């Protein structure tokens, strides 16, 4: 499976279709205590595409990512103002989720918006129990339905063939790359619409990274993916849209190809060409 060639092909195919916005961000400001991490940020994230957030450390890209499913709730002193909405689709009666609503059902939001972290963090349980963790929280399933769901998720995350003979073995016995794909399987087992990935490959070796990138590319037909990365090549290889952040502000956002080859801003140009960051 090669990640590079089909990426460009389908990018061109999907460019032909008009983007449908799934996550709409408008004039978002976010703070940690007195420190303002995000300034007046507006951005649309297209449905069933891969959107990459790039920028130097501390630019606010991870903060923004963690506001999309309110993971920042557990950070003391974190707060946000502005508009951050997940627009519903036709099959869902156009129900819109106002993510920053303090009364929002966060548990339901996180079922819709899954997250994969920088370091693989499987639970110290069996591989099966890791994937079944989310479904057991949210769904009422029979044993056979759960078995099927676990297999489906592991297959989707391209790790089934490697673990099918030791489903009840410890998840911590897997390699780093396998653990990260297991975490992706765990995230998609609850049936999310959006997958947030916070530098999912930064703790992995090059071949595992390639496997995850292939996987991201496969998954975007069914999921809207937002990926934070420090790796320019990764952003250019596997994303459709790229947003460049600097010091808490969105400097530039557009189709990945345009951001990397003909950036509109000088700061973007310097960053993507490796002059700083």
């Amino acid at each position: 499976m090669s990640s590079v060639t089909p990426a460009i092909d389908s990018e061109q195919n999907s460019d032909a279709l008009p983007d449908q916005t799934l996550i709409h961000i408008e004039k978002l400001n976010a703070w940690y205590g007195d420190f303002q991490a995000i300034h007046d940020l507006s951005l649309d994230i297209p449905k069933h595409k891969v959107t990459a957030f790039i920028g130097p450390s501390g630019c606010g890209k991870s903060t923004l990512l963690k506001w999309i499913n309110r993971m920042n709730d557990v950070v003391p002193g974190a707060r946000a103002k502005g508009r951050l909405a997940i627009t519903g689709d036709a099959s869902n009666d156009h129900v819109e989720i106002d993510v920053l609503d303090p009364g929002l059902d966060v548990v339901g939001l996180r079922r819709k918006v899954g997250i994969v972290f920088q370091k693989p963090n499987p639970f110290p349980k069996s591989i099966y129990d890791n994937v079944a963790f989310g479904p057991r929280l949210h769904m009422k399933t029979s044993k056979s339905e759960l078995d099927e769901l676990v297999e489906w998720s592991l297959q989707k995350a391209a790790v089934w063939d490697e673990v099918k003979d030791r489903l009840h073995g410890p998840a911590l016995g897997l390699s780093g790359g396998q653990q990260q794909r297991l975490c992706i399987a765990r995230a998609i087992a609850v049936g999310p619409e959006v997958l947030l990935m916070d530098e999912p490959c930064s703790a992995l070796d090059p071949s595992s990274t390639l496997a995850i990138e292939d996987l991201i590319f496969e998954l975007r037909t069914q999921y809207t993916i937002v990926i934070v990365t420090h790796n320019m090549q990764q952003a250019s290889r596997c994303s459709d849209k790229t947003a460049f952040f600097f010091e808490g502000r969105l400097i530039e956002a557009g189709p990945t190809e345009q951001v990397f080859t003909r950036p509109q801003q000088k700061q973007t140009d310097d960053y993507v060409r490796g002059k700083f960051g």
Partner: protein
Amino acid sequence: MSSMPDAIVKQDAKYLADNARRRKRFSLWFYFLCVAIALISVVILIFLMASIWSQGHSRLSSDLLTRSHSELEIERSGMWPSILGSLFVCGTCAVVALPLGVGTAVFLEEFQPTNKLLRWIHGFVQLNISNLAGVPSIVYGLLGLTVFVYMFNVFGQIRVNESAGMEIMGYKHFYQVLTLEPGHVVFVPQSDPTKRQTTFDEPFQAVDPDGNSIEISIWTPGTPKPSDPAIRRQTVRAGAIGGTITERSWYYFRLPFDKSFLSAGLTLALVILPIIIISSQESLRGVPSSLREASMGLGATTWQTVRDVCLPAALPGIMTGAILAMGRAIGEAAPILVVMGAAVAKSTGPKHLMDDAVTMPVLIFNWAGRQQDEFKELSAAAIIVLLVVLLLLNSTAIYIRHHVQKAQS
């Protein structure tokens, strides 16, 4: 490139080599010092064990394990009631202290409030727990005496043959009456709990010791006395006096708890609560926050995260703390002496919740202070038994912990 600073340039090879040798030598000395210090504690322990063994091994017999304390047959005195008593007291202590302690630790570590007032309460509880860990256990004994034994006297005082406090369940009061057959008594359910005595002049219904209901007739002195033992068992003298006797089920419950094993267990629970809370907090703090994030990210609530992720991951550490705490509880004598007194004559384990008990440390304390050499040897033997019981309890807990750890990894 600028020139190297003087400090780097001026070093000569001989000085560097000497310096390295000196530091290595010091490191080696320090290593031996550490080994020596470790050995000292082991030697003291071995000496202690050897001296107890030499004093007590001749008294290790089946009598010691199966019989009770006896003033008349000193050499056949045993500690069976105290083994039972210690297990009951420590069992109560564990049942109360473990859930409370782990629950408090979960509250302090996992449910950190954002509200200002709640945060203040949070900090206040934390400060108090840290301080309580250092309070001497006899102070807890006095607290237990006030709170559990007397309950500030709000439910009345317990006095032998006068008052039983506020009884709640598991009791039946009877009047006990002597029949004409010597040594044979019958029982009449007590209707008025305030009347401690009653006089029988008319025939009445009663219960014999086997639990059968029987009709009792009255014999008036001066008339012929029945001679058939069966009839004599159903007849009482006119004007016979019945005194109160109480039948207690195992769940007999009253307030206050008086000098019962329940009071002692609850007091010990107070003693070990801070230890359990602090060790549970430490092990919850050791659970990587990435696991909490993973669970929250999948849409788990805080409680589900605690139950399915944090507690299982922290369990081995929590159990280590619990083992240490129970080891302390089973060896505590001071608070038990304050709460239950120093009596060791009891010949059985506790029969009901409000029954008193002898515990091993109290028995050892009593025996070790006696004049007779037999008791001195017995106390050494009892110490060996106490250590073995402790070792058995700890190895069971360690075995369970090992299996929990294996099941998780």
